[in-house]
C-alpha cells in the first residue's frame, strides 16, 4: 500500500513539470495578440508555475519582450534574442516590443508574485510569500499549496503557511477558514493579528474563534516583547558589567576609589578610534581593527593606571576621601587633555561588518548583532578576570596582599608591585569597556562621566569585592532600567533605579553579596 502511494507520488512529481511545460508553451502565442489576450496569457503563465515564465514576464514588465512578425515571442538575452518557446537564438528583424496597458500590468503583478513563489532564489521566494500574504486572495490557495509542497527553507515555509492561512480566510471553504484562524493565531505575528482583526467583521459567525486567536497572538507578542526587553536589559547590563569590572578590582578589591575610572573607559574608546584610523589604510586588516583595539586599549589604560597608582594614589592609601578628590582631578585633566588632542566633537568608531545588522532568535526575537557581541564580550572578560584572580600567580599574590599586607610582605611578595599591577589590571579592564562602549555610544571626551556613577552603583549594589555580585548587580540594574523605561522613560527609570538602590542599601548596607565576619569589619 505504502509502496503504491509512493509510486503514485513519484509519478505525479514527474508529471508536474511536463504538464507545466505544456502550459508555458501553450500560453505563449497569446502574448502576440491584443491586450485582452496578453493579460489572459500572463495569467496562465503565472498559474503555470514554470521557472521559465519568470524571466519572460519580467522582460514583459520592463518592456523588453519582443514579438516577431510571425507571432513568435522573443526574449532578450544580453545582446541577442532567444525564441521563448525553444530557447534557441532567433532573428530579430522586424520584431517589435509587446505593449502593456493597465490591465496587463495588473495581471503581471499577480503573476509575478505567484511565480516568485517557486523562484530558485530563496530571498525572492520569501518576498513573494510576503507579497501574497499582503494581497490576500483566495485564488492563491492552490499556488501556495504547490509552492509549500516544494519548499524546504523553514523561514520561507512559515511565511508561506501564513500567506496560505490568510488566503484561506478570504476563501469560501468554511472548514479551511476555521483551520486558518487557528493557524494564524499560532503564528504569533503582528501581521496575522491585523488579518484576524480585519476578518473579525467579515466573519461574525467565527468571531469567538478569531478572538481566541487574537488573544493567543497577543500573548505571544507580549512574551516576545518581554524577551526583547530582557535582551536589551542584559546588553545594558553587560555594558555596566564591563565598566564596573575594573571598579570591582580597584575599588572592590583594593579599596581605592578611582573617580578617573570613567576617563579610563573614555581613553579605551579613543584607543579604539586610533587603532581604527591606523588600520584604515590596510584593507585586509581594517575589518579586524576592533579586535586589535582590545589589547591596545587594555595596554594603554593599564599603563595609565600603573602610572597613576605609583605616582599619586599610593601616597594616599588609607585616606579614601582624599583619593576620591585627587582622582577626580586626574579625571578632569585626562578629559581636558583628550579634548585638546582630539577635539570636543564626537569621533566615529565604525562597527565591523560582522557586527552589523540584526538577527532573529527563535520566536522572532530581534537582536542587534553589536549588542549581542557586547554581551558575549562582557561574559568573556568576566571569565578572564575570574581566571586571573583564581588561577594565576598574580591573582594569588593580589589576594594575599589584600587579606594581609604585612604577612604577604614578609613572605617575599613585593606588595608595591602587586598594588601597581592590580590597579593597572583594573584600569585595563576600564579600557576594554571603552572598546565595547565605542560600538554603542558617542566617542567623546565626556563618554566616561555618564557611566561612572552607574558603575559605582553596580559595585555598591552587588557587594564590594565580589565578582558574582558585580555580575548580578550589573545585569539586574540593566534589566530593571530597561523594564522601567517603557513606563517611565529613560531618565526617570534611571532616577527610580538610583532611589531603589538607596533604599536597598537600607536593608543590605554591604550589598547583595556581602562579605561577613571579621574580614568585613576592617
Amino acid at each position, binding site marked *: 500500500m505504502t509502496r503504491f502511494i509512493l509510486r503514485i507520488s513519484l509519478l505525479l512529481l514527474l508529471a508536474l513539470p511536463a504538464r507545466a511545460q505544456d502550459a508555458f508553451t501553450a500560453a505563449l502565442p497569446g502574448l502576440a495578440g491584443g491586450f485582452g489576450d496578453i493579460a489572459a496569457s500572463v495569467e496562465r503563465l503565472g498559474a503555470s508555475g514554470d521557472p521559465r515564465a519568470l524571466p519572460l514576464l519580467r522582460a514583459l514588465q520592463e518592456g523588453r519582450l519582443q514579438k516577431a512578425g510571425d507571432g513568435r515571442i522573443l526574449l532578450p538575452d544580453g545582446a541577442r534574442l532567444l525564441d521563448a518557446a525553444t530557447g534557441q537564438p532567433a532573428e530579430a528583424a522586424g520584431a517589435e516590443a509587446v505593449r502593456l496597458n493597465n490591465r496587463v500590468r495588473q495581471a503581471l503583478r499577480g503573476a509575478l508574485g505567484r511565480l516568485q513563489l517557486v523562484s530558485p532564489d530563496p530571498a525572492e521566494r520569501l518576498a513573494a510569500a510576503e507579497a501574497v500574504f499582503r494581497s490576500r486572495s483566495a485564488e492563491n490557495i492552490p499556488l501556495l499549496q504547490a509552492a509549500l509542497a516544494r519548499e524546504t527553507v523553514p523561514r520561507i515555509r512559515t511565511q508561506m503557511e501564513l500567506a496560505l492561512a490568510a488566503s484561506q480566510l478570504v476563501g469560501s471553504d468554511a472548514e479551511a477558514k476555521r483551520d486558518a484562524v487557528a493557524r494564524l493565531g499560532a503564528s504569533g505575528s503582528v501581521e496575522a493579528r491585523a488579518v484576524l482583526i480585519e476578518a473579525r467583521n467579515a466573519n461574525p459567525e467565527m468571531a469567538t474563534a478569531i478572538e481566541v486567536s487574537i488573544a493567543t497572538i497577543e500573548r505571544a507578542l507580549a512574551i516576545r516583547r518581554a524577551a526583547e526587553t530582557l535582551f536589551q536589559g542584559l546588553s545594558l547590563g553587560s555594558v555596566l558589567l564591563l565598566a564596573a569590572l575594573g571598579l570591582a578590582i580597584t575599588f572592590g578589591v583594593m579599596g581605592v*576609589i578611582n573617580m578617573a575610572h570613567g576617563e579610563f573607559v573614555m581613553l579605551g574608546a579613543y584607543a579604539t578610534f586610533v587603532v581604527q584610523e591606523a588600520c584604515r589604510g590596510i584593507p585586509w586588516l581594517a575589518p579586524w581593527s576592533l579586535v586589535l583595539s582590545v589589547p591596545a586599549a587594555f595596554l594603554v589604560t593599564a599603563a595609565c593606571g600603573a602610572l597613576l597608582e605609583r605616582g599619586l594614589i599610593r601616597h594616599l592609601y588609607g*585616606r579614601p576621601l582624599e583619593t576620591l578628590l585627587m582622582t577626580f*582631578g586626574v579625571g578632569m585633566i585626562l578629559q581636558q587633555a583628550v579634548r585638546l588632542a582630539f577635539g570636543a566633537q564626537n569621533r566615529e568608531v565604525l562597527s565591523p561588518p560582522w557586527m552589523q545588522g540584526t538577527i532573529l532568535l527563535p520566536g522572532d526575537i530581534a537582536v542587534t548583532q553589536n549588542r549581542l557581541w557586547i554581551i558575549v564580550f562582557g561574559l568573556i572578560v568576566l571569565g578572564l578576570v575570574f581566571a586571573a584572580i583564581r588561577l594565576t600567580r598574580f591573582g594569588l599574590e593580589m589576594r594575599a596582599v589584600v587579606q594581609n599586607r604585612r604577612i604577604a610582605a614578609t613572605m617575599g611578595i613585593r606588595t608595591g608591585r602587586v598594588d601597581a599591577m592590580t590597579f593597572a589590571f583594573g584600569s585595563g579592564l576600564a579600557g576594554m569597556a571603552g572598546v565595547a562602549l565605542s560600538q554603542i555610544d558617542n566617542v567623546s571626551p565626556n563618554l566616561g562621566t555618564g557611566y561612572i556613577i552607574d558603575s559605582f552603583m553596580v559595585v555598591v549594589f552587588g557587594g564590594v569585592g565580589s565578582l558574582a555580585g558585580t555580575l548580578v548587580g550589573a545585569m539586574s540594574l540593566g534589566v530593571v532600567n530597561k523594564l522601567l523605561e517603557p513606563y517611565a522613560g529613560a531618565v526617570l527609570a534611571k532616577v527610580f533605579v538610583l532611589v531603589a538602590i538607596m533604599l536597598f542599601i537600607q536593608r543590605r548596607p554591604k550589598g547583595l553579596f556581602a562579605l561577613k565576619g571579621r574580614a568585613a569589619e576592617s
Partner: protein
Amino acid sequence: MSASIASPAPAGAARLTIRLVLIGAVLVLALLPLLNRLPPDSALYVSDFIVSITGKWITYAILALAIDLAWGYAGILSLGHGAFFALGGYAMGMHLMRLIGPRGVYGHPTLPDFMVFLGYKELPWYWLGFDHFPFMVLMAMAVPGMLALVVGYLAFRSRITGVYLSIITQAMTYALMLAFFRNDMGFGGNNGFTDFKELLGMPLNTDAARAALFYASLALLVVAFLVCTRITQSKLGRVLVAIRDAESRVRFLGYDVTQHKLFVFVLSAVLAGLAGALYVPQVGIINPGEFSPGNSIEAVIWVAVGGRGTLVGAVLGAFSVNALKTWLTTVAPDLWLFALGGLFVAVTLFLPRGLIGLFSKAPK
C-alpha cells in the same frame, strides 16, 4: 588623617587677631558697592563686574561654609551639595518667574513663558505660593533641608559613611539633574529660568539691586559664619569632630551619631539652599547644569584648597579658587580645567590642611 586637620578653638591672642582680620575683611567687602558709586576715573573706582562677581563669590563662600561644616567637622563628604544650592536657586527662580507676570514674551497673565510654550493650561500645584517672597524663602530652606533629612536619615541610619556616602550623594545630585532636564517636570527643562525682571519691587538690572543683593549675601555670609562658629565651638562641634575621627567610639559613649550627623547635614543643606537663592538673582539664570556632579565636587575643592576644618579656610578657598577661575578662564580658557584638576591633586597630596595650613603652625 585626623592629625593633619586643625582643631577649632585657637586660644587667646591668636583668636583676637583672627577676629580683627575677619572684621576687616567684611568691612572691605562692604565698601565695594560704595566704591562702585565713585566716578569711573577715580583711583578707587570698582567696576560693576567686580561688584557682581564678588557678590556671586560670597554666595559660593556660604556654600563652602556649608560643605565645610559637614565635611571638615563631621566628616560627611557630600558630593551633592550643589543639589541643595541648586534647589534653593530654583525656589528663588520660581519666585522671580512668577514676578515677571504678564511681561513675558507671550504676555500670559500668570504662566511663565516656558509653560505657555509647552502648552500648560494652568500653574502646576507645586508652583502655588511662590509669588510670595516669604514663602519662597521658606521653600529655599525647607526643600533642601527635607531632601537632606530624607537622604541623610536613610544613609546615616544604615551607617553609610566615607566614600559610600559621597557616591550616594553624587548619585542624588545626578538623579536630580536628569529629572530637572525633563520638560514635563515643570521647571523649564533644559533652559531653566531666566529673563528675570524684578525682586521685592526692585528692577534687577540696576546698581541699586546689585548692591542690595551684594549686601544681602554678605549679611548671610556673616550670619552663617557666626552660626557655624557657634556650633563648632560648642560641645556639639566637639562631638562632630569626634564623629569625624572615630564614629563608632562616639556611639559607645552613648551619643546617637545619626541625630548629630542629621542635624549638621540638614543645617548645611539649608545654608547651601539659601546661598543658592541669593546666587540666582545675581547671575540672572538657573538651569539643571547647576545640579551637575562636577559643580558639587568643585565646591568641595574650594574647601580643601582653603583648609577644611576651619571656617575661615572654607571662605578663603571659595574666594581664591574662584578668583583663579575668573582670571584663568579669560587668559587661557583651555588651561582652566588642567589647573582645577591640578588643584585637586596638589591639595590632596601636598597641602592637606589647605592654604590656612600655610599660615598656622602644624599641630604637634
